[in-house]
């Protein structure tokens, strides 16, 4: 049953897909996996800066979600719930890592992590311009990696994934107002950090 299975209508709304997955419908669950694996991977990768660990995190989160689906009360809450699972798994992993105290990225290490900042260059524009864009993104991700994990998660969830203040608050166990404050500090620090670059 690797296909999109019996009775699977391509234009289904997400709440209906979630309800079916809750009933144990594998095709519906597979659809959710296909929808969320890339988003969760991007979040995990920017949190953990490790391809393999980000993959493990995606696998663990979605497997957990299959087991937990029947307990999800509101079918409209799936997105927020899965982001919450993923974010907290990343934060747990980072806590374990810092307990081992080896992998903490310090500002002076920033230019030694080009792999972490690798990306596809937008096509079809002037190469000099592209190089400048690319360097600008490298600076952004390098400064981002110096932020404390919870603050980085807050910034990523809002700026890269467009999650709501309320949802981020639930995920990080802080009030929406605190989310706003945390975001403002993150933006300030990143903006300052980028300007100090070179």
């Amino acid at each position: 049953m690797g296909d999109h299975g019996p009775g699977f209508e391509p234009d289904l709304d997400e709440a209906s897909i979630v309800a079916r997955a809750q009933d144990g419908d594998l095709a519906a669950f597979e659809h959710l996996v296909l929808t969320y694996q890339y988003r969760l991977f991007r979040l995990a990768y920017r949190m953990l800066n490790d391809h393999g660990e980000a993959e493990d995190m995606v696998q663990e989160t979605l497997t957990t979600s299959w087991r937990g689906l029947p307990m999800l009360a509101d079918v409209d809450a799936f997105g927020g719930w899965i982001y919450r699972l993923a974010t907290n798994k990343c934060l747990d992993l980072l806590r374990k890592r810092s307990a081992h105290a080896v992998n903490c990225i310090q500002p002076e290490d920033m230019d030694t992590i080009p792999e972490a900042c690798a990306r596809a260059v937008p096509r079809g524009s002037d190469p000099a311009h592209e190089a400048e864009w690319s360097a600008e993104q490298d600076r952004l991700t390098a400064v981002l990696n110096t932020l404390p994990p919870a603050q980085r998660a807050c910034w990523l969830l809002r700026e890269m994934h467009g999650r709501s203040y309320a949802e981020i608050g639930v995920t990080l166990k802080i009030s929406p107002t605190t989310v706003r404050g945390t975001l403002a500090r993150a933006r300030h620090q990143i903006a300052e950090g980028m300007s100090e670059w070179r």
Partner: protein
Amino acid sequence: MALEDIPRLGCGRSIDRIWATIDRPPTAHEEHCEQCQTARTRLQRLGEATRLLRQSDLHDPALKPRPGIKNAIMDVARAEVRRGSSILLRSADNGTTEISEQALSSLIRIAAAAIPGVHSRRCRIEIRSASLPGEDRPSGTTGTTTTARPRLIVNLWVAAAQGIIIPRTMEALRQKISNALPACVGISAGTVNITVEDLYDV
């Protein structure tokens, strides 16, 4: 307390406020305040870098999990698949025939998919226990076949498309399910309860 946490410039403006109005022309204060101008320039640069990073991460082939990850997730799901309880359809000396609740509900969804304007959601199937025959039948007469005619109660929750005529559509849906069960399973549909729990945009 959190609002106090928002960084402020020496001139008293909060970073949050500058960020919120960054796409607008500078205010009279901002035009003359050096701190505000610096902050605006830096935040504008951050805003642009953020937009670019979002775009390039989205399309970067290196920022995707390998296909094996999805397969591994689905392998676990399949191994732990929830089939619900089984419903006894037929009991005889030469063996029983049961059907999983999951098989029935997926069949009901296939039937529902043929009705435009309906997205089926959860499905619960109950059996009226009174009509269930005893599972251990005395084997006095060989070759006895008891087709248990389970009285099914199908409870289906659906989302309906905005603007459809709900009663007529639900009647068509009920009819479709009532026809599918005898044709595809070989049992009568019993009661079909449909609850419209949501509307979806088309």
